[in-house]
Structure formats: C-alpha cells, structure tokens
C-alpha cells in the first residue's frame, strides 16, 4: 500500500514561498532591526515621563527637609517607574525617603537594627554589611527583597519587596544577609 500511496501523490520538489504566505496574510513581517528600533522607542517613551517628573519636581513625595540636590532612586525592573526615592536629611544625620508615592518621612541615623514599614513593605538599616534580604509570610511564602545601599551623605541601606505581597499584615519576618549569605539581621514583625 505504501508503494501505491507514493505513486498516488508524488513528492513535491518545488520550494516553498513563505513571503507569499505573509502577503496572503495581509501583513508584513516585522524585521529584527525594526523590532529593536521599536523597543528602544517604547523604552524612551516609558522612561521619559519618569525623568521629566524627577527633573520637574526633584523627587516627588520627598519631604521638604530632604536635600533634593542628592536624590537616589530605585526603579521598578519592568516599567522603570520610580518606586523609591531617598535623600540626605538637611541639618540632621539621617535620611528622607518616599516609597511608592504612598509613604514618606525622614529618620535619624541609628547605630544598629532595622526598621520596616508596611504597606508597602519597605525598610532600612544603617548596617552597611547587608547585601540581600528575604521576607517570609505566616503562610510560609518567601518574598525576595531588593536591597540597595546609598552612600555619601545619605549612607543607608534600604530594602523593599520586588513583588506585591497580597496581605502585608501576614508578614512574619524579614531576614537580611551579608555578601557571604550570613544572617546579619532578623526582624520580626507584628
């Protein structure tokens, strides 16, 4: 039967024409170079309002006591929006912050320990050994934290949740580690 089937419809030798398929589909294929240019253009459009906002306001949400000549920011990895701003506290030893445009304040420098606010899950420590962190909920879910150190006159290490925590009230503890992975601070929350 195989032999008969082979003769019934012989094999095709003619090459295909994918461009004809695309023409019939009514669309042109987006070439990689064009795609790259498009991505760059979109990225510029997405970032431009952020930069414009920063330039116009010098850090929206920061308290008036903040030294706006020395603002540091943390950007969201996906949409590049400013999720945290920090700056030195004018006339004091400490720093000012604004997180997610939802919470802002200025805090004095302390010798040890860490402070956590929620929501949003955000905290800081003046212990400059801290390099990474992780939050744990009462349900056992572990949430990685973004940790950033701001030097200069700000001189603080901040940490905040990269992903949204559904119920911040269920946050159990935050563990902060040094570069070697050793626990530096363990903060329980209520």
């Amino acid at each position, binding site marked *: 039967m195989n032999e008969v089937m082979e003769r019934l*419809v012989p094999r095709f030798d003619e090459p295909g024409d994918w461009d004809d398929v695309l023409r019939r589909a009514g669309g042109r294929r987006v070439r990689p170079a064009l795609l790259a240019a498009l991505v760059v253009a979109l990225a510029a459009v997405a970032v431009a309002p952020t930069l414009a906002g920063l330039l116009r306001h010098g850090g929206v949400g920061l308290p008036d006591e903040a030294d706006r000549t020395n603002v540091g920011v943390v950007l969201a990895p996906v949409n590049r929006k400013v999720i945290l701003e920090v700056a030195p506290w004018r006339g004091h030893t400490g720093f000012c912050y604004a997180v997610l445009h939802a919470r802002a304040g200025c805090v004095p420098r302390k010798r040890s320990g860490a402070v956590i606010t929620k929501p949003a899950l955000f905290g800081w420590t003046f212990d400059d050994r801290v390099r990474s962190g992780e939050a744990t909920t009462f349900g056992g879910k572990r949430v990685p934290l973004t940790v950033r150190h701001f030097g200069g006159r700000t001189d603080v290490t901040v940490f905040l949740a990269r992903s949204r925590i559904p119920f911040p009230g269920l946050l159990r503890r935050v563990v902060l580690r040094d570069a070697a992975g050793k626990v530096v601070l363990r903060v329980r929350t209520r």
Partner: protein
Amino acid sequence: MLDELEALYRVRLNEFRRVAAAIAGDRELGCDAVQEAFASAVRKRRTFRGSGALEAWVWRIVVNAARDARRRRPTPPEPPSASTNGHAPTLPLDLLTERQREIIFLHYYADLDYAAIAEALAISPGTVGATLTAARKTLRLAYEEVRA
C-alpha cells in the same frame, strides 16, 4: 509564534502539500490550499490557545482549506485512485468515505499518529483507529477482488 509557523512550514511543507493535494484532488489546488491555510494561520495565530500541538492546529486549517479547494472546483473530481499501466496494483479510494480518505492521507503522507490525526480532524483517537482499520479492510478486499 510567527517563527514557529514559519519553521513548521519549511520543515513539513512537502507533507502538507501531499495531503492537501490528495484531498483537493489536484496538485496545484493542494499547493494553493497550503499557502492559503498558512496565511490563515498567520492571521489567526493569536487565537491559538496552546492547549494542543501547534502542528495539529495547522493541520486542521490545512485540511479545511483543501476541502474548500476541492468544493470550489468547477466539476468535482473523482476521488483519487492509484493505477499505472494496468500491471501495478490499484487503490480504489472511491470506495472510501471522505473521512476515511482524509485519515489515510494524514497517516501515510504526514506520518501522523492517531492522537495527532484526531486533533487535526476534531475526532477521537478511537474513531481514528476504527476508521483506519475499516478503510484498510475495504481496500484490501477490493484489491483481492481485482487480483482474483
């Protein structure tokens, strides 16, 4: 998704064309049906839910395009039958139903298994097996009658 469709087109074009030509009853119509089917797949690619194999999804579109091509012919062709100079065996495909023929074509030309044929024709794998067995039996009996 577009890249996957293009890869499928380039890798399996001969099989798509043979099945489409067998269903349409004409090589040119079969080739044109494949082009139209892939164009349709490109247009509708965002509707592909990914619950099944992409190839099976495309096969279904190709089979439908070949059926349409067959119906659009001015005079419906005789179901394809294989014969050469009278000495070679004959395959009386006209004894088969349309579904039996399509399953035979997908099985022999595209080398699809029962599950893939079932997905392409929107029927159950059990139906594919039973239909294929029945089709083979019909062809074998007819072939033995001719030889006798």
